[in-house]
């Protein structure tokens, strides 16, 4: 009984501690840093505003240097190859990344990140690599979208293979407004899994009860005294 009581106590302690964490405890591979929202989802209580970013790229020998612009919270990274810009008449290129407030709410897509306005004072001649981090508490986006104005229209610019967990990336030859999301009406694989989790746990509970109770009764009947606890050779 002592072992069962300690096991029960450990379950209660774990569930209590895990329940007290917002947005919920999980093990594994989620990003360490919570996502900073302009417009947080309804279930996010604690939120910090997202950061902007600025970069000056040097022009050396008539060629813009390779470099990466990023926001201070790391939610957006834009990588530039050497010679990525048309540097006519320039000695340096200024790049700015700003979260867009108010949040765009296009009817044609479900947005799962902040929208960011990325600008530079010179046009691109080589595509830049754009990486947006997304939150681990929303469905995963399927693509990145681009718009000239915050009001849209938003155009899909695709998504590459996931370089790091909870990031989405693509290449862009234009500056403007960027968000990650998926078409409205489409079911994100992440969203489906979110709905499946409670169902899966309910099925597990049913499975444990249906299989476990008869097994436990059978074992009790087969067990010869003294029982396992007293011998110290406990088994499941």
């Amino acid at each position: 009984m002592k072992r069962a009581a300690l096991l029960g106590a450990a379950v209660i302690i774990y569930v209590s501690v895990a329940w007290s964490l917002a947005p919920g405890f999980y093990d594994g591979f989620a990003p360490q840093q919570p996502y900073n929202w302009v417009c947080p989802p309804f279930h996010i209580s604690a939120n910090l505003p997202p950061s902007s970013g600025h970069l000056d790229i040097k022009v050396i020998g008539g060629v813009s240097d390779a470099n990466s612009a990023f926001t201070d919270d790391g939610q957006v990274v834009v990588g530039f190859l050497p010679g990525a810009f048309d540097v006519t008449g320039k000695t340096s290129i200024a790049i700015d990344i700003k979260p867009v407030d108010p949040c765009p709410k296009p009817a044609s897509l479900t947005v799962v990140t902040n929208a960011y306005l990325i600008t530079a004072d010179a046009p691109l001649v080589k595509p830049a690599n754009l990486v947006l981090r997304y939150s681990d508490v929303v469905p995963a986006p399927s693509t990145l979208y681009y718009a000239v104005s915050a009001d849209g229209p938003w155009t899909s610019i695709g998504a590459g293979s996931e370089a790091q967990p909870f990031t989405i990336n693509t290449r862009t030859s234009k500056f403007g407004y960027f968000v990650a999301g998926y078409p409205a009406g489409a079911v994100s694989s992440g969203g489906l899994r979110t709905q499946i989790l409670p169902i899966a746990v309910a099925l597990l509970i049913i499975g444990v009860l249906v299989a476990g109770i008869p097994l436990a009764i059978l074992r009790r009947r087969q067990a010869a005294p003294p029982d396992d606890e007293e011998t110290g050779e406990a088994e499941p």
Partner: protein
Amino acid sequence: MLSVLRARPAARAAVIAAYVLLAGWTRVLFSSAPQAAAPVLVIGGVALAVTAIGWGPARLGLGTSHLALRVVGGCALAVALLLPAATRASAAPLLPLSLALPAVVVSIGEEVAFRGALYAALEDLGGARLAIVGGTALWTASHALSHPPEFLLAVAAAGLLLAIWRWACNDLVAPIIGHVIADLAL
């Protein structure tokens, strides 16, 4: 080397403890590199499972008796581990599909290392109490780089639950099953 360590329980426990911490922290540090997450997690999980070398299956808690009960126990542990997240599903994090296999390998590796080899080494050194408390402390420390500080108490509570199961039921099969299901879901 293994025979020398077998004769010195304190040295063996210290070597396994240092190894699992090093393997866990190295995995976390390297898994953030671009395109590296999945392979590094798999290698890290295998590296942890290496600690099983030199231990018999029964000593690790991997016996086959009452296998059906062990499997059901694993499902029960998964229920306990997932219950807080499942009851607030809208906020549950989502494991990318590309990380499913790494999640399985890491879960098995962590259980074999912490509730298997490390538990057995600490139990040989100072009994079940040291195995549970010491193993849980090292388990929590190994997660210090991968989880935000406010999560570490829950990490410790999960480690304590799995370690108490290992002690109470002399079983590692259920913790492996429970850990794998929980990590696949989250």
